[in-house]
């Protein structure tokens, strides 16, 4: 199951003026792939995600799931928005099973499944805590766990580590690679951070400032499994230079 974006365009009406946000973006996410989207702030990355999951309508272009139009986005993608959006009135455990519950799974069964995975997400022992009682990193992991547990073939992650400190961030990136290997879902990943995109992805799309178009499409041919030291490899630096040239 993959996603194809064909020449997606979108503009908003702001104060009576037309603001073109996406100016024909084409991209592709194959089954089980890790693909990143880099672009300057405000260029339209979140807008593109909203279009993929059906929260916004494109003015032109198409979003194809598995080569077809008109498939319900909810069956294919699981969305992790920029804010963690944990429900404050639900315990951590009941937050992460939300998508399963919506799918009609028995609550107890979903809880049992989630309990077994708590330690994998570094959340064991906090099942009954409310989101307000968790640290920023834990909330982020909880939001990610909720997204993964939805068991959709494609995950849309919008800057999941944007608010974290550098040390936590690197640890979370490596851990995300583990999760990705374990669950085999495709990941479409939005970030501002070139190092992050290179460490994680198999391919990278670089967007221009608004109106966004694809400035560069780059294959990341770094060997896997990758570790934190990869950022000093010569090939890594070469690729980083290519991306920087496209961005600045």
């Amino acid at each position: 199951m993959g996603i194809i974006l064909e020449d997606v365009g979108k503009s908003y009406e702001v104060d009576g003026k037309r603001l073109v946000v996406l100016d024909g973006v084409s991209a592709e996410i194959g089954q089980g792939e890790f693909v990143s989207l880099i672009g300057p702030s405000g260029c339209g990355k979140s807008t593109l995600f909203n279009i993929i999951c059906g929260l916004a309508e494109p003015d032109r272009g198409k979003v194809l799931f598995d080569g077809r139009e008109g498939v319900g986005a909810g069956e294919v993608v699981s969305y992790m928005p920029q804010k963690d959006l944990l429900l404050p009135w639900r315990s951590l455990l009941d937050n992460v099973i939300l998508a399963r519950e919506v799918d009609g799974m028995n609550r107890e069964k979903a809880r049992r499944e989630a309990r077994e995975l708590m330690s994998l997400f570094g959340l064991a022992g906090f099942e009954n805590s409310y989101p307000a009682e968790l640290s920023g990193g834990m909330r982020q992991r909880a939001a990610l766990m909720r997204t993964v547990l939805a068991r959709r073939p494609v995950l849309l992650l919008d800057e999941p580590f944007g608010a974290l400190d550098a040390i936590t961030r690197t640890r979370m990136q490596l851990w995300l690679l583990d999760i990705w290997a374990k669950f085999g879902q495709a990941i479409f990943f939005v970030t501002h951070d070139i190092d992050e995109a290179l460490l994680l992805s198999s391919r990278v799309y670089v967007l221009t400032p608004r109106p966004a178009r694809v400035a560069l499409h780059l294959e990341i041919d770094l060997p896997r499994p990758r570790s934190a030291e990869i950022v000093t490899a010569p090939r890594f630096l070469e690729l980083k230079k290519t991306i920087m040239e496209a961005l600045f």
Partner: protein
Amino acid sequence: MPRSSKFTAPLVFIVALIAIWQGLVTFSGIEAWLLPAPWQVAAALKDMLPLLMYHSQSTLLAAVTGLVAAVFLALAVAVLMDSSPWFKRGIYPLLVLSQTIPIISIAPLLLIWFGLGLLPKVIVVALVCFFPVAVSMVEGMEAADPDMVNLLRVMGASNWKIIKTVRFPAALPSFFSGLKIAGTYAVMGAVIGEWLGAGSGLGVFMTRASHSYQLDRVFAAIIVISSVSLLLFVLIILLARLAMPWYFKERSRSND
């Protein structure tokens, strides 16, 4: 501040107020049928306690039944308003308008239509309580984070599921502040209903006492009415703590 001192200040004020009242009565030599002294009220309260307890039962029954009816009605209206913008546009002005009708003027009509029993009192209470509960519920549901609603929508949740998992819980803090206001209105509404005619109730007790110029008894009834309202208020606060443990945890954390 240590916990005990929380009650010291209000206590001082109450004692001072009673002392001033007692002083006024003693030094002016005012007649008891115009203004009884505090100790006379206390004596009346003690004498009349069994009778007052009996009458409070009917009042409390009318107040609680009316309040519960108002809550269910308000929830139903809030859900309808949330699921249909058309319904919302139509009903909202009516809600506000209903609030401008003086309850004291329609209470006699209710008595004519429904007799002297419990029902007209329950209706008066429900009418008084419906508005604050409905408005706080609707506004609370509207204030739910639209991104949370969208998150559920992408998961494929139905409207009803979204109301249950996001809008209702998000509205609870607002709902309970409306309910606290309604709770204090409820006993008042029941007493007004009883004033106009009933077999029993604190309102009946008060009318009888004031018709025979037994003001000490009227004051005793006022004290009981306040106590009953206070009881309802405390019950609502306890209910809020049971219903939203997460909210009070968050609040106590941010106050630390």
